[in-house]
């Protein structure tokens, strides 16, 4: 184990206590060893024993909770996430940036459709604070490793798209970059996706939580969209689990990140309406 790995793995106890800064937490989730994740999961269980004495909430809270869940859809089961540690959950935060939905013919133009904006789940902090929180919290959604990859107890799951350590490290570098920004959007199938980008590094990634597989014979394809139109940023698969895709190519200032469903093998230019578009 080299020193860098040890310095990350040493964060397991602090991670279990929610005592890491957003930046440190992102690093741990992206880069910790399986052993450190397992330890974090165990210590998190231990920490809950400290929770202390019971205090009855006001009776009105019960009615309020039951009323709210009656109107709240449930997220799909996620086999991969179940195989990993169940307690590190996405703490869904509304994004302050406004995701936009654009039609293929307006690629590069960018008509805004605020209906894609995820609604806030509660009142609370203002947009700036929400944005600061939204930058990191959704990483917890990346809770499992796609089939075939090693299971990482206690946290992150990096998908099959991230074959190899260098891709993992590149993803970790993007999410923990000092200038990293992120926007969370709801996908047409009800799952959530978080686009995270670092202008400084010129890279971006999309973290999917629960995105279902593309239809038979098709694949997902990512695009960087700028004034010259969409440039392919690679194809990827999904399977209802948590997965992360690091986009190929370079993010240039002001580009949008998009995803479409394309025939197997991908296309030179988008042939369908985008299912995700986020302006950086």
């Amino acid at each position, binding site marked *: 184990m080299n020193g860098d790995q040890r310095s990350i793995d*040493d964060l397991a106890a602090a991670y279990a206590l*929610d005592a890491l800064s957003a930046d440190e937490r992102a690093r741990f989730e992206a880069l910790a060893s399986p052993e450190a994740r397992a330890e974090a999961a165990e210590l998190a269980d231990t*920490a809950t024993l400290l929770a202390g004495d019971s205090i009855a909430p006001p009776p009105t809270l019960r009615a309020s909770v039951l009323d709210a869940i009656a109107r709240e859809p449930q997220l799909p089961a996620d086999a991969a996430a*179940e195989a990993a540690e*169940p307690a590190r*959950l996405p703490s869904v935060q509304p994004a302050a940036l406004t995701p936009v939905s654009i039609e293929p013919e307006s690629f590069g133009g960018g008509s805004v459709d605020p209906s894609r904006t995820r609604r806030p789940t509660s009142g609370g902090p203002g947009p700036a604070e929400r944005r600061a929180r939204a930058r990191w919290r959704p990483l917890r959604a990346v809770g499992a490793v796609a089939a075939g990859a090693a299971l990482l107890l206690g946290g992150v799951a990096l998908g099959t798209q991230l074959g190899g350590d260098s891709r993992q490290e590149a993803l970790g570098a993007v999410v923990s970059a000092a200038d990293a920004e992120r926007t969370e959007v709801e996908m047409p199938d009800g799952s959530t996706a978080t686009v995270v980008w670092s202008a400084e590094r010129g890279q971006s990634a999309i973290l999917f939580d629960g995105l279902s597989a593309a239809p038979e014979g098709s694949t997902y394809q990512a695009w960087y969209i700028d004034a010259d139109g969409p440039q392919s940023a690679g194809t990827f698969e999904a399977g209802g689990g948590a997965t992360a895709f690091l986009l190929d190519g370079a993010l240039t200032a002001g580009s949008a990140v998009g995803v479409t469903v394309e025939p197997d093998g991908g296309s030179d230019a988008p042939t369908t309406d985008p299912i995700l578009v986020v302006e950086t």
Partner: protein
Amino acid sequence: MTALALVAPPAILRRVETTLEQCIVRAADGDQRAFAQLYDATSSRVFGLVLRILVDRAQAEEVAQEVYLEAWRQAKRFDPDRGAAISWLLQIAHARAVDRVRASQSQRDRDARIGVRDTAVPIDMVSEQAEISLEAARARKALRELSDPQREAIELAYFDGLTQTEIAERVGAPLGTVKTRLRDGMVRLRGILGVTA
């Protein structure tokens, strides 16, 4: 003997926890009555933790609601084979409460809040307490077995929501020392308390 009673979790608690896991599994199929049962069995523990961290009752109520909403959304992803329902819920509750502490308060507000809490809450908690759980008594006893610096670091993290860096500033120790205290202290606690589930 008191000590024995504190060490051995009574069988009835285990039975209750089994039922809680089943509640979540049924709730995962959209069973709102099962979720109501889960709420009834756990809301005092969730609220106790959230209130301890946030102090402010209105905020604690908001966050407790968020916790259950998240549990409902995530119910299908709960795996009873991998952990106890109460641990799952309390981890959601802790993360949410700490999020709220960090997001909603300026550092100054927070220091003031912690100052107020340290003097005011014990009285509050005694008067409001619905139930002193065996588990909480065990945990307090276990915490007393740690060294003072270890206990202080863990309490600042778990109950005050401080990051390890903030703890280092607070206690005037190097960050590396605080990391070691958190780790050694938690590993020791795990040894004393055993693993849940």
